[in-house]
């Protein structure tokens, strides 16, 4: 009994110490929380609007730096289809839209389509020998504008609106004329393009 009475002050001191430690830890976490929220707010903001291309849902979104949707367009994207050309030449293509982060490289008015070799092969036509051959170039196929985000891959218009919303293209992203005009007028070179 005497020992309990003697140890009581030490017990109270221990309780006080634990209480102070717990309060201090909670305060530290609270300070850390505020600091992290500030850091997160700074990191979440991006410098420019950006384009998001959803190849599964076939949508093109233009988002502002606060991630709000400025434009939501239906598109057609890569079919993920394999195409093998004539055996002797071992031609082999997979028509899918590349995924990842890219940038708007250039914007073109009234673009001319340079027909790739696969287009001649699919059509059963002979591939022209010379790069300057007029059969390689077609005007009007791509719509009024083209927004390139890779050397040969772009957002462009379509003659076949019925195919919008489908995975049907050779890799490019097709949108209708109104969405294409909006994107051309509002997107700037260098803005990020995310494809998933």
């Amino acid at each position: 009994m005497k020992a309990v009475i003697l140890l009581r002050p030490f017990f109270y001191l221990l309780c006080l110490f634990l209480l102070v430690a717990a309060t201090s830890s909670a305060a530290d976490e609270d300070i850390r929380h505020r600091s992290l929220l500030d850091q997160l707010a700074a990191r979440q903001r991006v410098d420019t609007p950006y384009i998001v291309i959803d190849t599964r849902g076939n949508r093109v979104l233009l988002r502002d730096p606060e991630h709000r949707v400025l434009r939501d367009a239906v598109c057609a994207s890569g079919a993920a289809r394999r195409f093998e050309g004539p055996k002797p030449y071992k031609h082999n293509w997979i028509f899918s839209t590349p995924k990842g982060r890219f940038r708007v490289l250039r914007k073109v008015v009234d673009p001319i389509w340079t027909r790739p070799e696969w287009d001649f092969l699919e059509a059963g036509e002979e591939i022209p020998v010379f790069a300057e051959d007029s059969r390689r170039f077609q005007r009007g196929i791509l719509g009024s504008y083209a927004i390139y985000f890779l050397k040969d891959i772009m957002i462009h218009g379509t003659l076949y609106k019925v195919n919008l919303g489908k995975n049907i293209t050779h890799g490019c992203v097709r949108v209708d004329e109104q969405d294409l005009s909006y994107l051309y007028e509002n997107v700037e070179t260098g803005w990020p393009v995310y494809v998933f």
Partner: protein
Amino acid sequence: MARMNDAIEAWIAHIDSDRPFLLLDIGAGELRLYHGAALLRRCPLVAAVVDSNRAVSQRLRGRIRRYGAEPFQPTSAGPFDWEQYLAQEGDDECALWFDGGLLVYAHEVWLPAAPPAVRLALEDLRALFDTVADSVGLVLLPAGWKD
């Protein structure tokens, strides 16, 4: 509070890594796909059972695919090589499994799913299944993180 802070710290680290990652925001009822700071897709949760002691930062352990009447098989170790070759895209019954034990699914074949588990709409799950790379990160954000 410490767990919440760890989750926010992991989120910031993923933004800095500038790579795709998933964020499970329990409070908002959403699983979101990001690439760095850019928001790529919002997937509303159909159902979620996540206990509060799970790791806030997880990695994708396997894309799980169902082959007929056979048990669930990770695609990397499935018995049907030819089928894996043909079918790369997710179907309705596929699921994502993370190393913290979280299961992300959509189809009712997974019911009753043992916690922690999150159910999405079919279209959202298929989109994520096709998109995320192996070992993609996931941040589990507890409810009330903004308070």
